[in-house]
Structures are given as structure tokens and as C-alpha cells.
């Protein structure tokens, strides 16, 4: 029935400039009915701008938009919505204190008019159940959204799109907050949607996923359309080459000399009720240790507890062999610890403030005269130097960090801790939501840190990343260390086996 080749949406020659800088150069793009079309490119390639034009948030300077073969003008988000275009945002746009059903029908509640508009609760719930079932899920529509997991919340957004008969759903990095199992679930949902003729534009930095879920893929680079191809005719390597315009050489897998066996961080019997228990491990100077495990296994809670920012009931922590008491992050910083949080926007950066301000945030006292008065000159020198070393792409140091891409924001967070002279780095999902190019740079940076003798403990959900970076891997399963793997013996299968509790 479905004509798979008819373009549902066709963009031709889209050009867009902002204050004199062209971010899209005559981009062509089309989505067929019932297809999953992946859109990839480094941050700043123009993906978001292109999608915002489709969604009516921005208007193109030049170029035409065709919807079902008819030329249309999309001036407002409302118009896009009425045509049948929905976006599932990276940051979910739900009302946490309302129920699932209320969120699905937000603003379009089934109602009967009788002087006022009276809500038809029963109909609302029934329709919600039907919608969620059609997506292959059973969620009680009476539950409050705040009680749901991120994956379930995402599903509610998809259901909301469907409830308004959307024919095109744009998903922006949908899997970045999801665990592996939830990701599989999402892919099933996408398959359901596809089967019912809904088209999907799928934006993701995780290239592997694209081969699982997408039919075709389009690569943008620096505002230019580079290629559109069926996924069957390409591979990850080819896509990366299109994205960065150059080969990313695989890091020489030289086993870094494990010279240093000096203990930097030792943890004994660390526990927090209901979160993790009986945690014992050591990280040496110059060593990179990964904390692997499923989302929700207690990894974030563990590193935050180590940093004095989370609860803990028992256990001892030793730094350089000395027992220490860390009750607040301020204590941790004083002992030379650094924490790159899992969510840089809410926990890592003062978004409205400048790069300079953010980099100097943790180091304050370091440059201050008499420990009180700021030394602006010295501070600016160091911040500028760090920004160059880390290759933060920016106009100047006083630019607000909110205007930087994810990768550059993360570099600012790292620069903050470098300027504080930290010797123990705790990194929680250091490359979440970051493009391929910046990722490689951040990996290199982490390695350099280790070479300088810094002890690194990082949490990651990406197995590839763990295998790429770690000297040693601690696998956490339901709040306990399920096993430890050395780099030489580790493999994706072994880690997953331990993480899912199948190790013993």
C-alpha cells in the first residue's frame, strides 16, 4: 500500500545565514514515506538548523520546501505541527506533575462543549492506552510523568506526536540518555512506527545505531550536503570520513607504560543504602580505570559519593595512602579531586557566564592574591593558554558557554579542572552528546592527563569508549563490583556479561 519512494518531505537548495555567516549552503534533503532517514554530521555541521527550518523555528533565506509534493511555507512551529511534523526533543518537553495521558493530549484534550469545555477523562485514558499499545508498550496513562524513566518519557513524546497524526517525527539524539536495553526497545518502537507508515528523521552521534535503525543516511559537513546513501551501501568508516573530511587515524594502541604503581585513590567498603555497597578498588597514578555497567547500576551515585556530593553510609577513602574525610565537594577539590559530571549543563557549567568565568570557577584561590583578591591578569593568561591547548573553538574568552557546542562545553569543564591543578579525575560519561571529532580530542586529552601522572576514573555506557581508553575496567552490576577486567582480556561480550549479572 505504502509507496516507499514517494518523498513525503523534500527540501531543495536550502540556504540560511545568521548575521552574515552562512550555516547552510543550498542543502537538498528528502524523506520518503515510511522511511527512517538518519542525519549525521559533527556539531556545527548544520543539522539542528536544518531541522529547525523543517519545524518552523527558523525560516530559510533561500530554497523551497515540499510536503507531499506540494510547496509549503513553514513560518511557525504551529504550522509544522499542523502539517504533521513533530520533534522529539533532546531535552524532553513534558510536564512532570501531570499524568501520562494529560501529557499526550496536552493542549488538545478530548472535551465536550457545554458552556465550558468539559474534559472526557475516560476517553482520554482509553485513547492513551491504545496509542501506547500501538507503540508496543503498556504504561498506565494515570501515572505521573515524573515517576517514569527517561525512556518511558521519551515514549510519551512519541505518543504525543502520534496522537496529532504526525506523519514525520524528528528524533534528536533519542538514545543518548538510554541504556542498551531501552535502546533496543526504542528501536522496536521505531520499527512499529515505520510499519504504520510514519517517517522518521533520526539524528544521532552513535553511528553504529544508524546501521541498526535507519534505511538511508545523509551526511552534512560545514553546512554542505555531502552524501545521501542507503545504509546498506556504506559503513561506519566511510561515514566518519564524510563527516570529518579526513581520516581519523586509529590511536596507536601502544600499551602505555604502566610504570607507575603508586596508589592515588583507594576505596574500601564504600556503601550507600539502596545505591551501592561493598565497593573496593584502587586507582594508581597515571592509570585510567573505567567504571562500566548499565545505566542505573549505581555508577553516577558512586562517583558523586566519592566527590562528597552524594550520600554514603560506610567506607573509607584513601588519597595517596592517607585516609581522608570528604563530606562536601569543597573538601574533594581541596584534596585535588575533579569531577566532570554526567550533565554538564545542570551540574558542570554556569551557562550564561563566559568561558573565562567557568574555567576559573574551581581554581579561584589558586591565582588569588592573599587568597582573596582576584589576579585578573594571571588568571586570563592561564585561561587563554588552556583554551588554546584544548583547542576550544570560540570567538573570545568572554563568550558565554551557552553558545558553544557540546564538545567545546565539555572542554571548558575539563579546562576548569586543569586550571585547578587536580590530580585525581573522576569523569562521568565524559563524551555524552559530543560529536566524533571532539570525542577523539577528549580521549587524547584524558590520555595526556594520565601520562602526566593523573589518576583517572571514568564512567561510560559506551563499550567502545571503555575498551579504547581504559587500562582496567571495573564492571558494576546492581550497586556492586561484579568483576574486574584488564585491558588485554576485556571484550564487549565480557563486559556485558558481567554488567547484566551473567558473570557468575
Amino acid at each position, binding site marked *: 500500500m505504502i509507496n516507499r519512494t514517494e518523498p513525503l518531505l523534500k527540501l531543495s537548495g536550502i540556504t540560511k545565514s545568521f548575521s552574515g555567516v552562512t550555516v547552510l549552503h543550498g542543502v537538498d534533503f528528502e524523506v520518503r514515506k515510511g522511511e527512517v532517514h538518519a542525519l549525521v554530521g559533527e556539531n556545527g555541521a548544520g543539522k539542528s538548523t536544518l531541522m529547525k527550518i523543517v519545524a518552523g523555528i527558523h525560516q530559510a533565506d533561500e530554497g523551497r520546501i515540499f510536503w507531499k509534493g506540494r510547496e509549503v511555507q513553514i513560518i511557525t512551529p504551529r504550522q509544522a505541527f499542523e502539517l504533521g511534523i513533530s520533534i522529539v526533543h533532546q531535552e524532553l518537553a513534558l510536564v512532570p506533575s501531570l499524568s501520562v495521558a494529560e501529557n499526550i493530549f496536552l493542549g488538545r484534550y478530548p472535551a465536550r462543549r457545554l458552556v465550558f469545555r468539559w474534559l472526557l477523562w475516560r476517553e482520554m485514558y482509553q485513547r492513551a492506552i491504545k496509542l501506547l499499545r500501538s507503540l508496543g508498550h503498556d504504561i498506565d496513562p494515570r501515572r505521573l510523568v515524573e515517576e517514569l524513566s527517561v525512556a518511558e518519557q521519551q515514549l510519551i513524546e512519541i505518543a504525543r506526536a502520534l496522537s496529532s497524526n504526525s506523519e514525520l517525527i524528528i528524533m534528536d539524539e533519542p538514545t543518548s540518555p538510554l541504556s542498551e536495553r531501552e535502546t533496543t526497545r526504542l528501536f522496536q518502537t521505531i520499527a512499529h512506527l515505520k510499519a504504520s507508515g510514519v517517517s522518521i528523521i533520526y539524528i544521532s552521534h552513535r553511528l553504529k545505531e544508524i546501521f541498526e535503525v535507519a534505511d538511508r543516511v545523509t551526511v552534512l559537513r560545514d553546512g554542505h550536503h555531502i552524501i545521501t546513501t542507503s545504509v546498506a551501501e556504506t559503513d561506519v568508516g566511510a561515514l566518519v570520513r564524510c563527516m570529518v573530511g579526513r581520516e581519523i587515524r586509529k590511536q596507536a594502541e601502544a600499551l602505555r607504560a604502566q610504570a607507575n604503581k603508586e596508589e592515588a585513590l583507594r576505596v574500601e567498603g564504600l556503601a550507600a543504602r539502596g545505591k551501592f555497597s561493598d565497593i573496593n578498588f584502587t586507582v594508581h597514578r597515571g592509570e585510567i580505570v573505567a567504571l562500566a555497567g548499565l545505566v542505573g547500576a549505581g555508577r553516577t551515585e558512586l562517583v558523586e559519593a566519592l566527590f562528597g556530593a552524594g550520600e554514603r553510609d560506610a567506607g573509607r577513602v584513601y588519597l595517596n595512602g592517607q585516609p581522608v574525610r570528604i563530606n562536601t565537594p569543597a573538601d574533594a577539590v581541596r584534596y585535588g579531586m575533579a569531577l566532570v559530571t554526567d550533565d554538564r549543563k545542570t551540574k558542570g557549567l554556569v551557562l550564561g557566564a563566559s568561558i573565562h*568565568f567557568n574555567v576559573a570557577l574551581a581554581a*579561584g584561590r589558586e591565582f588569588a592574591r592573599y587568597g582573596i583578591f582576584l589576579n585578573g591578569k594571571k588568571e586570563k593568561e592561564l585561561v587563554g593558554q588552556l583554551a588554546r591547548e584544548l583547542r576550544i573553538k570560540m570567538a573570545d574568552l568572554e563568550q558565554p558557554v551557552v553558545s558553544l557546542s557540546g564538545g567545546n562545553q565539555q572542554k571548558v569543564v575539563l579546562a576548569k579542572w586543569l586550571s585547578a591543578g587536580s590530580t585525581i579525575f573522576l569523569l562521568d560519561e565524559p563524551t555524552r552528546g559530543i560529536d566524533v571529532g571532539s570525542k577523539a580530542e577528549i580521549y587524547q586529552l584524558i590520555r595526556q592527563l594520565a601520562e602526566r601522572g593523573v589518576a583517572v576514573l571514568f564512567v561510560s555506557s559506551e563499550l567502545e569508549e571503555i575498551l579504547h581508553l581504559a587500562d582496567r575496567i571495573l564492571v558494576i552490576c546492581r550497586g556492586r563490583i561484579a568483576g574486574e577486567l584488564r585491558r588485554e582480556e576485556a571484550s564487549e561480550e565480557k563486559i556485558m556479561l558481567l554488567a547484566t549479572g551473567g558473570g557468575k
Partner: protein
Amino acid sequence: MMDQRAEQAQEPVVRKQSVGRAFWPSMPGQLLRRFGPLLGLVLLCLVFSSLSSFFLTFDNLINVFRQSAVNALLALGQLLVIITAGIDLSVGSVLGLSCVLAAMMVKAGAPSGLTIVAAIAIGAALGMVNGLLLTRLRLPHPFIPTLGMMNVARGLALVISGGYPISELPDDFRFLGAGTIFYIPAPVVLVLVVYTLFHIFLTRTTLGRDIYAIGGNQQAALMSGIPVARRLTTVYALSGGLAALGAVVLAGRMNSGFPLAGMGAELDAIAAVIIGGASFFGGVGSVWGTLIGALIMGVLRNGLNLLNVSAYWQTVVIGTVIVVAVWIDVWRQRAMKSRMLISK
């Protein structure tokens, strides 16, 4: 887009500027924030001087400044609190209580200098209680502890004084409120000195920067090792101390410590801070802006008095000015935000 622009200029441009910090984006919107209140003050003065020949005389202008002094001191404390994204409703009552206690002390024969120091210490202690309630009891919002303190302090002022003013204070105690230094009223000099000190505190010290960071993103500040609870307690203590300094000025000027001193003064202080360009959402605000905010309120009251506008109508005008000032700020921020979205 920023990325591309930056690629062309690989070397980050470190802009030349004074040693201090200009960490908020340098955009046109910022100009409006920085000079908007000053522009408003100048326009206001022009209007009043064209309507009243007496307005633009040295005596009158100094008088405006003198009358604004108490509000300026309260507003300075309020500014610190508002930069941390908080609010201090207790400053008016803290002023009242310190006013009564200081008057009683000095009447009982305590030396004036000691009394002034003691009054400030009492105010700071009351403010510190606010801070501790907020950070140790983890009350959900500064509104709650400071609302409590507003009632408690006012109640205590009435209880201790029995509701009666304590008048006829010694001259040397009254100096800060009623004295002059080279023809300039002492409260004006005091305000300028205190404001300068706090300007240095906010822009040149690590503590000042911590305060901005807490208001900008409390969670990020905490995770960067800033002792947030301690800083907040300090800020509320400073606010209380400044309120008590205001009490000393007011008592000196009125030659009386009266328990109802500073009724509603917290709202005037908040108004001055907001008119002065600080953001209720925290992280933004400057000492000089706040001074101008306090002066705008003083000029309005003075000018309207000269024009024989009734006190009732004055309230209506001031209410309108507050809303308009904030509206301008919101409008400015929206313009800036859209610029930021574009640059992404």
C-alpha cells in the same frame, strides 16, 4: 556558526580590559543593562529640572542622596542576596530591631562607636540566622526563613521597646545619620565608601565571584568545590549587617530609635535592586546599578514632592516604574536569547 567563525581565528582573542571581570557577554544588550538605569536616572532628572526650578540645585540633589541613603544600604544587602537568586524579606524588620537595640544601648550610656559596632553585629547575626535556616534546615526557598525573620524581628522590636520610640540620642551617635563632612552629609559619604568597598568585594575577590557563580548555577558551583552553604550564610549575614548600618543612619537622622522603623523597607530595597538592572534569576547585578536604582527611587519621590503630587499617587508611579524596569529587562533578555540561539 560560532565554530566556523572561530576556525578562521584560531588564536583566541583576549580582549584588553581592566583587571576586573567583565564575564557577562559583551553584546549590545549588555550596554542597555549597564547604562540603562543611568540613562533612566538622567532622563528623570531632566524631566524634573524642566518642571521645577528648585530641583536641580546642589542643596536639593544632596538632599535626595541623603534621603536615599538608608534605602541604598538596604538595597546593597538585598543585591548580594538577589545575585545568589535569593530574596531577603527581613531587612526592614532587622533594621527596626537593630534601631531599637542601638538606641537603648546608647541611652544606657554605652559609647557610640561600640554601640554602632554592636548594632551591626546584631543585624549580621540575625541575617546569619536566615542563612543557617536556609542552608542547614534546608528550607525550600529563602522566602520562608526571611519571611519568618521579618515577623520575629519586628515582633521583638515592639516587645523590647514596648511600642514606644526611644528619643533624644547623643550627638556623636547621631553623626552617621545627621552629621556632615565638608558640607557633604555623613550618610552620603558613608554610602559612597560602603558601596566602593562592596564593589571591590564583588568584582575583585574570590568570594564575590563565588556569589555570582552560585546565582548563575548553584549546582555547578557546588560541584566545582565552592562551599555554597557557607557563602549563602555569609551573604545573608552581610545583608543583615547592612540593614543594621541603615538603622544607625536612620536613628541618627530621626534622633530616635523606633520599633516601626523600616516598615516595608524591604520592598523599596528590592525595587532599587531590580530597577538597577539585577536579575531576579540570579547571577547578574552590579553595585553601581543598585545605587542608581536607589537614586531613581529617591529622585522620583523628591521630584513628585516638589511638584506637589500626593503621596498616594507617588506610590502608583513607583509601582509602575518597577514593572516597566523589569519589562525592559525581560525584553532585553529575550533579544539576547534569540541572538544566542542564532549563534548556535
